[in-house]
């Protein structure tokens, strides 16, 4: 199907370009949520990576801007928007969220035909990230967090102990306990 190929092609290019500079990256946001819960339409693909290294980020921006549109096109931001073949790709590192080695090691790798191997944040880490985001962005993110918990528990695929530990590390344990309370 032509439309599917178009999106898979953009997705494949985004992964190739981001992996080249940020091998520790993972898919987050609604696109990642859709792997764990009842799928909802989404307008973009969100990636998380460690954007703190200014030199690496500057090289990435220089490389990407020679092929695709990127905004903003300078270092010092936590969110970058890139247009690849008509598909919007966001590359972020939310300042309040701890994207550490343990989170990276627990990524789920999915093999998608026409795209390749795709690392997705684990359900526990994705929920933690949504809860952290909800403090600034509001209840929409919290609803997505609870969706993932409910569907993952129904699949017997959610480690509560690990989840609560990461919530503690990110200073959102009270909200996480409330999400698990019923």
């Amino acid at each position, binding site marked *: 199907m032509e*439309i*599917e190929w*178009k*999106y*898979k092609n953009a*997705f494949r290019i985004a992964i190739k370009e981001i992996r080249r500079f940020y091998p520790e990256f993972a898919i987050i946001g*609604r*696109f990642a949520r*859709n*792997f*764990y*819960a*009842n*799928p*909802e*339409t*989404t*307008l973009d*693909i969100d990636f998380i990576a460690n954007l703190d290294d200014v030199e690496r980020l500057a090289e990435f921006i220089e490389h990407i801007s020679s092929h695709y*549109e990127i*905004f903003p096109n300078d270092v010092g931001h936590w969110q970058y*928007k890139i*247009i690849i073949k*008509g*598909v*919007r790709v966001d590359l972020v590192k939310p300042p309040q969220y701890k994207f550490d080695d343990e989170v990276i090691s627990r990524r*789920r790798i*999915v093999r*998608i*035909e026409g795209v390749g191997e795709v690392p997705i944040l684990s359900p526990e880490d994705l929920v933690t990230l949504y809860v952290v985001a*909800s*403090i600034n962005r*509001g*209840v929409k993110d*919290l*609803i997505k967090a*609870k*969706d993932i918990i*409910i*569907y993952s528990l*129904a*699949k017997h*695929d959610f480690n*509560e*102990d690990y989840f*609560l*530990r990461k919530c503690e590390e990110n200073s959102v*344990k*009270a*909200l996480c*306990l*409330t*999400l*698990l*309370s*019923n």
Partner: protein
Amino acid sequence: MKLQVNGNYIYITLWDKQAKKPRRFYLGRKENFKKLEELFRVAREYRITKQEITDYLEYYFDKRINLTKIEYVILSLSLGVELWKLNGNIRMRLE
């Protein structure tokens, strides 16, 4: 479950499943009371019906990979962008 205000700060006391005892959590400054109250209300009350979960497991779930069927995840993106374009958004905006 009630948010508690003490001076300029907000707290909540909850049962900590890991510590197996009640614990008082600091939540922030009292200017954020309404926002936090709404977050805790939604965290507690938001639900999904059993039928929705059954439908997901029956139609969208791929047991082999323990995830949503890949074709539906890709469809969620292509459908989302195509519908957005049909609604008059001719060019993808960076803003």
